[in-house]
């Protein structure tokens, strides 16, 4: 009895591991590994609207819940392609030219690089007090310098920030992890300028940000996307402030020698699995 049981168990294990013998054919070219963001991501939504033309991604796409996750996988997988914010580019991934235009901050500002979007902050009604001053700070030369330093795309600054008197208390800023680096660094500088902890920043995600500011538990909410219709219904008084722009780079592994330049149509064809091998391009 026991021996038969063990035999059955061994065979089941053999079945599991026999799956490991299913070698994919690597003799020709390199299989494309499509990497994207999760369904709830603002970046994915943007990519879906502006690159995919609202058509479906391939079901085989690996989904990551952060820019860093996409970066990690693309930098360690030879055949991978992914999309991440410009701030995440370094020598471990290779950014691809889109329609012949390099993915740089300058090209986004010039309006020639096609994949970019706005990053937003929301307040419930018009901002007042510390929140208003902080948003002014971000719009100022100092704030947009931080934007530039972190690899995001600055907008035209409003000139140097002028310190005001009589700011007391503290506010919290909650939301998108994409906007978080800017808010965090701006808050560090802002607090230092006033010599007191006026602004605290937390992550949580775009939805958490919108919800927190709508419910009043945070003074400012950060979101890497526009408001959804359900959110506008729930929180009709939210006021949007654009922090800066964010270019989205299409990246591959640095050893990928197949491509330097893709058209938007080719990117789309990769993401809907019309192309499955780098040789096809």
């Amino acid at each position, binding site marked *: 009895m026991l021996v038969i049981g063990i035999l059955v168990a061994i065979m089941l294990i053999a079945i599991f591991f026999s*799956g*490991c013998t299913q070698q*994919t054919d690597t003799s020709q070219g390199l299989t494309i590994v499509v990497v994207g963001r999760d*369904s709830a991501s603002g970046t994915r939504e943007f990519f879906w609207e502006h690159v995919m033309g609202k058509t479906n991604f391939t079901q085989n796409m690996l989904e990551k*819940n*952060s820019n860093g996750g996409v970066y990690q996988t693309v930098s360690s997988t030879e055949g991978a392609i992914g999309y991440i914010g410009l701030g995440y580019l370094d020598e471990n991934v290779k950014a691809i030219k889109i329609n012949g235009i390099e993915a740089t901050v300058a090209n986004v500002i010039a309006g020639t690089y096609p994949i970019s979007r706005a990053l937003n902050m929301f307040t419930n009604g018009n901002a007042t007090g510390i929140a208003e001053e902080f948003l002014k700070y971000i719009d100022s030369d100092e704030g947009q310098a931080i934007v530039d330093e972190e690899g995001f795309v600055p907008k035209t600054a409003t000139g140097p920030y002028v310190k005001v008197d009589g700011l007391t208390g503290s506010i919290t800023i909650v939301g998108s992890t994409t906007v978080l680096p800017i808010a*965090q660094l701006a808050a560090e500088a802002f607090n230092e300028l006033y010599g007191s902890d006026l602004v605290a920043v937390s992550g949580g995600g775009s939805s958490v940000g919108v919800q927190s500011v709508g419910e009043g538990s945070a003074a400012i909410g950060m979101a890497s996307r526009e408001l959804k219709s*359900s959110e506008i219904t*729930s929180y009709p008084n939210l006021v949007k402030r654009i922090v800066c722009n964010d270019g989205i780079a299409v990246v591959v592994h640095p050893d990928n020698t197949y491509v330097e330049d893709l058209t938007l149509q080719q990117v789309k064809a990769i993401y809907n699995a019309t192309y499955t091998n780098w040789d096809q391009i």
Partner: protein
Amino acid sequence: MNIRSKRKNMFTFSKRNFKEKSIKTIFFIAAIFGVIIIFSILFFLLREAYPLPTDVWSFLSGTKWSPTESLKFGTYPLIVGTLLVTFGAMAIAIPLSIGGALFISEIASSRVRSIIKPAIELLAGIPSVVYGFFGLIILTTMIKDFFGVPTGETWLAGSIILGVMAIPTITTVAEDALKAVPREYKEGSLAMGATKWQTISKVVVPSALSGITAAIILGIGRAVGETMAILMVCGNAAIVPNPLWNTFSPIRTLTSTLGIETAEVPVGGPHYHALFGVAVLLLMITLIINLSAVYLLGLLKTKHSASGKKKKPLISANLTAKIKKIFTSISLLFVLFLLYLITGIIVTGILVIIGIIFWFFIKKLSEKNIQRIAFSAIGASVIIIIILLGIILTYIIVNGAGALSWEFLTEAPRNLGRAGGISTALIGTLYLVAGAIAIALPIGVGASIYLTEYTKENLATKIIRTAADLLNGTPSIVFGLFGFAFFVLYLKFGFSLLAGQITLAFMIVPTILRTTEEALRSVPQSIREGSYAVGATRWQTIRRVVLPPAAPGIITGAILGIGRAAGETAPIMFTAVAFSSFFPSSLFEPVNALPYHLFIVATNVPGSAARAAAGGTALVLLLVVVGFYSIAIIIRNHYQKTMKW
């Protein structure tokens, strides 16, 4: 005796009685708390899942999960993914853990046992986000390069990680079952001249079989409910592998869907309701798994208890043997068929021939040689477990040691964790854990006092105990979603320290309840009777006689609870944490926590400085959790050695 003093006596007696009664009521309330939690989890998940954006049938059978673009809410690929990953994990974990359990309980000398057993238990203390971190960086790359596949983020990677994580659960429960086999059985068998292996395979294992099965089922429950590690290693493509046995296909589980999508989803939309639908589905699956484990463990208890009644078997022994034979041959044929489907006729033929040769070979072998082979297989499985533990620990220590410094522990994170230290995360974890234990300890201890001291076994205690077992097996991410729906949204706590503390407390109540109950039960009945005999009330007996010797056991339970709470990410991810560099100034502010800090720095922050910081955070987290576990193990061992009745 005059009337007056008699009346006074009566008065004090009834006052005493009142006190006793109210104490009992308090403990009863603590005891039914677990039942209340289970039902409120179910209620609030269902409440948020309603209305499902699609009908229930297409929710379960739809083959496409695309909740934002084409608004398709089919969970079929997620269910298949969950089942396949679990199946693979069990293919790895079951042989290793049964081998480990047999080694610890039957073969190892007491000195070896005192090293191996804590080592395997430490494996349980490694936080799942640390496993995920290891899997993401090392395992997936190894699989990709070794097998030459396009990506290592696959079903196989998920199964290996989950398998390793399930090993301690299965090993410890199976070892308990083996230990519960009465000594006389073994002695009888050995006295008849059976070898040690014959005794193990023909006497010990069969009589512990239901316990071993329950251990496996609990391991399955652990694997099904795991979130953070699986989310980081298995690719998360919502597809059914093609062909089904393609272990190199990326895969997506129910838990990882919840893990990656919940934080960003707009509250109240169809996607939101669908995610809570997924949570309900997950809870249902684990409830079924855990109920069957509870049932099987119950069987084990009745089997060894010496009740005078002997049930007449429904069918004769002869017939059962026949049925068993038919059943095994059918399952053997089925497995062969599967093998044929997957590998084709040639490989199957070779395997069958090898199997038959192996079969005759075993028949020919002397009992002594069989024992030798069996024992070396068991030894090999233990060695593999130890090596796995060693690899993971070495990797984390080597990667983290460089970042570790006094400043790293005491400074607040700057520049998104790339500079500065982890003080806010460390303090945040301490706050969370302290609050959780302050809430969970009274409930857990109160419930176990009620169960052991105030009642006999009846339907009520059975329900309470089952609820605790179910709570124990509920996936941590389900607690997270419940906390989000109930504390954050319904009670409007917001993302707050308090919401996180209560959610974590609910999660560790069963751990504390169980260990406390064991400790209370190990206090001999005669001591209680002695106390009653000198006129002490029940409460006095509990307070002065039962609790003091049980205290080390209770402390062990509390420490195990602390360790579990400190290492968990999923329950706090949607209730309490924020990546912040501030200390919370009130219970209603969010906090940073070590596992979350690690998760964010490892997956969300670019640059090599972030990777170094992630390594350091992983090491600190590991040290914190393993530290708590080691203290618990030391207290338990000390207590086992010194407490003799």
